[in-house]
């Protein structure tokens, strides 16, 4: 596992931002986690879409998520699918269920041996290559550790 400061030096693909998804990535630069919410049925939505996937109402709103989540599942990757990630192994990919409901794919920082299904997590902002990404860590990690403290 490499330190989070070295993630910035990886040569890995960043997001393919579109005009519709740009608000998510712009907010990430300010360490704010945006998801969408349907203006009609009010269900939260992630990833960002052009309409609500539940009722097809037009143009969902953006709302700021709390950054609190629980752990649905995870995998410690030893052999990445993309060669740019080889310098970062082992790293932990996870499915993270946001407190608002939607599930997102992310990474978990810290010792994977401490991970348990459904444990509470919180967002940690990490610069990976040229992008600020929302990673997560156990909510109990490092008392007093700020969102960007190295560990």
């Amino acid at each position, binding site marked *: 596992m490499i330190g989070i400061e070295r993630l910035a030096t990886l040569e*890995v*693909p*960043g*997001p*393919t*931002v*579109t*005009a*519709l*998804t740009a608000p998510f990535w712009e907010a990430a630069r300010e360490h704010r986690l945006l998801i969408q919410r349907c203006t009609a049925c009010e269900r939260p939505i*992630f*990833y960002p*879409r*052009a*309409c*609500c*996937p*539940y*009722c*097809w109402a*037009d143009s969902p709103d953006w709302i700021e998520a709390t950054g609190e989540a629980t752990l*649905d*599942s*995870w*995998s*410690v*990757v*030893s*052999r*990445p*699918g*993309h060669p740019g*990630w080889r310098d*970062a192994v082992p*790293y932990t*990919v*996870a*499915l993270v269920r946001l407190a608002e409901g*939607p*599930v*997102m*794919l*992310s*990474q978990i920082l810290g010792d*994977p041996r401490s991970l*348990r*299904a*459904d444990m509470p997590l919180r967002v940690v902002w990490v610069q*990976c*290559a040229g*992008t600020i*990404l929302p*990673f997560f860590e156990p909510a109990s990690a490092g008392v007093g550790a700020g969102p960007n403290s190295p560990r």
Partner: protein
Amino acid sequence: VTTPGSMAAIAGVGELRPVRDSGDRTTLEMITEVSRLAVADAGLEPAAIDGLLVGPMVGETPMHVPATVGEYLGMSLRFANVVDLGGASAIGMVWRAAAAIREGVCEAVLCVLANTLTETRPRSPNRNPIREFDVPFGASGANVNYAMIKQRHLSQWGSREEDFAEIVVRERDNAQRHPDSIFHGKPVSREEVLSSPMIASPLRLLEIVMPVAGGDAVVVIAADRIAPAAHGMVKVLGAAEQITHRALSQAPELTSGPLKPAIARALARAGCAAEDLDLLSLYDCYSVLVAITIEDIGLCPPGQFGAWMAEHDFGPDGDFPLNTHGGQLGFGQPDLAGGMTHIVEAVRQLRGDAAGRQIRDAGRALVTGNGATMGEATALVLGAA
């Protein structure tokens, strides 16, 4: 579901105003807009749509196109396909939709085509939700996704690594009776599986299919119009399809998949129960998919595949012959043809042509197919003539 022979009709239409420049919009966004128009025109709720036909390269990604569009629109589909016939595609879609409806596969098929055009900038390559929201997090490829499916099974049910390894051992054992299999002459022990290198925890190397070059083909005929060859033919007794998602983050569940309803409908269509089957020819890209498929067939309660396996024998002479060609874990995975190896083996068994591994009196086989991140499922019941 409609009964076979249902008439088909066009119930609604949508159209976007043509523009010379679509600006920043993606193909998926254009598809969304025109789909909403057509479904509204038909007077239907979105949930009423259970079939989807799309053009190729939608969302600028060349594979898993129907699941990508279906997931984007939040649809659960009983029928989905790309129709790739250039200017003939639209009519091609309509008759396929009518045929699927007459066959009783689905009730309401959305046929949609849309494209972007910009004069000022080149098209961005490969824009789709997985590329934007999974790949930047180091999650490229299938292994890490099926690893998370297995991890959830371990966490949720307390299932045992030894039982996942046992699946690989048994498929390899069956491969020893198929001289063409890539692992012929190479049986494997449970200890060897468990000590093989970890690729993406908890998936080990030997729980993942070996990529190979190869190919498979089948010919389907009108049984009442073309005389069969001397070996006879194998009847298509039932089929079903279910598509729920493309990205694993959008999966309704991690430890059960769209295989479950697809298998249930295919068996119902064939008028038989799981206990009537003489061969289970189950798609097996990873050990965990076999475990979940056994549970989704309903052979045992969720989470209990290990205990169930201990009571049953997967060999050609056993009480539950399963992947008698070795499965893809034993035979090898010739890319997309890997799924067809399961059909070819079922046909050989039902014709009595499976020399050296023939199941006695094989009458019915269940074949399954699986794509993407356990989000594209097909099931087929075949019967001896």
